[in-house]
């Protein structure tokens, strides 16, 4: 079914392109310069229109048929077994679909066999109708499109307009999904805060939301997210402390000092590092780094938890280095050579040139790189789960186990507690994270705009 549809669409589109082009060439009668649009545009116009029409016809037909088949099966089931509840009816329907499609039904009985037979007939009908309708719509459109081909027809402008429409549609989808996610985030968060006062959540220092659940109600005293904020801040801070200087210095070395050969070797390696899944960093942190930190700490007479913010932060920093260095390297390399020449020509050294001309010119990009690293650090979950623990300790001591906002969201959603109860705190945490990240971005962009040195 899917393969057939793809084939029909492909054949129709290619045929439309070829025919449109040929017809335009024919209309020109040997002198292509009389055409308003070159033949390829006529071909593209016909192809675009035909593809869109066939695709739309298939989509509409599939939706309508689905609705019709379900209705028909439902009425058949009500006829044969009027006593079934709607949930049981749905179950029978899905079993029937499984029987007729060769799947694994939960039960096979006479009712299901009968419904399956009807389902088979209707499904066979759909399998013919959908491609058929698509083909018909495509052919009809192709025919009208071809009829419009003449020397004055503005296929070039029109096909551009169609492409623009498609681009706008894609942009709208992206925006709508974002809006949808935000709306649900805000809605759920508002529901959570209708039960829990905001200050108890933001400033409470005990986090154990599910242990206080009684008849689906959360205990106000145990949803204080302060320990999570502290843990997130602590780990992010440690990670940035590692990643920012190392990433930036590595980028400066790569962009300004390394020989081309060195650069072309080191950069891909860094990029590979960026592709290592964070799970791997996570167990590296838990199994290799944590014991080392513990060993050093004990040698110094400090008490170190076996899972510590320090271990998680360090490894997370290492994880972020390639992001920052690779992006910063691009940004620094993009600063025009003319600026460097200007500075060198005034008698400044290479280092002075970097410090006073190149880095200031690259600042907006460097801040973006740092922001990206920051966002990754705040959102990183895997490393923290494995290496920092899950205990919501309210502490700023990097040698203790802490937990972060993202880790607690995972715990809440994957735990056994009913989703309706656990989702509330999770959404509230997610929303807080969102607001903080957004605010951080806005502030950083303001700062960049204020201090930027635009070189273009």
């Amino acid at each position: 079914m899917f393969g057939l549809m793809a084939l029909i669409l492909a054949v129709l589109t290619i045929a439309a392109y070829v025919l449109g082009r040929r017809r335009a060439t024919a209309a020109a009668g040997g002198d292509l310069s009389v055409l308003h649009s070159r033949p390829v545009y006529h071909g593209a116009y016909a192809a675009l229109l035909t593809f869109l029409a066939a695709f739309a016809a298939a989509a509409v037909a599939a939706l309508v048929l689905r609705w019709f088949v379900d209705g028909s099966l439902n009425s058949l089931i009500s006829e044969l077994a009027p006593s079934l509840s709607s949930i049981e009816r749905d179950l029978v329907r899905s079993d029937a679909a499984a029987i007729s499609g060769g799947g694994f039904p939960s039960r096979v009985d006479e009712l299901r066999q009968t419904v399956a037979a009807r389902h088979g007939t209707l499904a066979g009908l759909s399998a013919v109708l959908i491609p058929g309708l698509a083909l018909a719509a495509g052919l009809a459109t192709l025919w009208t499109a071809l009829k419009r081909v003449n020397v004055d027809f503005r296929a070039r402008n029109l096909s551009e307009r169609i492409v623009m429409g498609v681009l706008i549609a894609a942009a709208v989808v992206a925006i709508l999904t974002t809006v949808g996610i935000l709306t649900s985030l805000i809605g759920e968060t508002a529901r959570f805060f209708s039960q829990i006062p905001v200050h108890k959540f933001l400033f409470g220092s005990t986090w154990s939301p599910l242990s206080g659940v009684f008849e689906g109600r959360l205990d106000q005293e145990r949803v204080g997210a302060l320990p999570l904020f502290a843990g997130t801040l602590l780990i992010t801070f440690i990670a940035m402390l590692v990643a920012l200087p190392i990433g930036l210095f590595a980028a400066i070395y790569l962009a300004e000092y390394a020989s081309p050969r060195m650069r072309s070797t080191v950069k891909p390696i860094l990029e590979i590092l960026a592709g290592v899944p964070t799970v791997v960093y996570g167990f590296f942190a838990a199994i290799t780094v944590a014991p080392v930190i513990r060993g050093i700490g004990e040698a110094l007479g400090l008490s170190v938890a076996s899972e510590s913010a320090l271990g998680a932060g360090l490894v997370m920093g290492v994880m972020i280095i390639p992001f920052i260095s690779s992006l910063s390297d691009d940004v620094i390399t993009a600063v025009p050579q003319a600026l460097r020449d200007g500075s060198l020509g005034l008698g400044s050294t290479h280092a002075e040139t970097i410090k006073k001309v190149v880095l200031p010119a690259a600042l907006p990009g460097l801040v973006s790189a740092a922001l990206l690293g920051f966002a990754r650090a705040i959102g990183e979950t895997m490393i923290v789960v494995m290496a920092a623990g899950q205990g919501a300790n309210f502490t700023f001591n990097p040698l203790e186990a802490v937990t972060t906002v993202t880790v607690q969201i995972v715990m809440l959603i994957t735990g056994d507690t009913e989703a309706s109860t656990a989702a509330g705190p999770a959404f509230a945490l997610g929303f807080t994270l969102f607001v903080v990240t957004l605010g951080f971005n806005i502030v950083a962009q303001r700062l960049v705009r204020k201090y930027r040195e635009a070189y273009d």
Partner: protein
Amino acid sequence: MTLTMENSVGAPAAQAAPRNDLKFACRGVNVHYGDAHAIKDLAIDIEDRLVTAFIGPSGCGKSTFLRCLNRMNDTIAICRVTGDLKLDGEDIYAPRVDPVQLRARVGMVFQKPNPFPKSIYDNVAYGPRIHGLTSNREELDELVEASLTKAGLWNEVKDRLDKPGTGLSGGQQQRLCIARAIATKPEVLLMDEPCSALDPIATDRIEQLIGELRSQFCIVIVTHSMQQAARVSQKTAFFHLGHLVEYGDTTDIFNKPRDKRTEDYINGRFG
């Protein structure tokens, strides 16, 4: 404060130049880019306090040789310079010479105006700050004003010194670059086709400026415009395929060239 300009434009460029002190003395200069031989056994003496123009068809090595004079070629990894280049009798390629200090003495203005993306003030103050030429803010203010005045830009920008230099027009940007170069108090100004990105009016303004600056600096200008060379320079060097073909007073080069190639080039027969 305003700086009074020494009146130096009195003598038309075409008049025979008086004998001046030698600034550069170059013998047996060869430049290679990897295997490509860009400058071939070149010898030239460049005089102080006048304008020397390098002309010649594109790719003949004018810029390459110009960049030898302040060792900007050092920044190109594959470029190798050999031979004897002396500035005031001192070998500028000697191991103990710091190219960075040399470039403070031999300033450079580039083909495309390249102001830093900083304020106009900071552009001009860049060199003085790096080299510690002034000891306090007032002195720096004075130096910035003096440099901008010499570059003929002060009146246009005195109310917007804190605005970015990149916001100026092309001609103003190029004069800002000249002011920036002057501010480090160089002895020599190298200019590589400084007007090729500018419109005729801005070009005229820069040419006038070069005439004014002549009395204080040794100026070497690369130009692809023979009219420009005739207008601004007292000495002209004609380059061809890496060779210095002919060098002499601008009037002589343009009126009675000795070499056939020079004559052909000046009469627009190639290049």
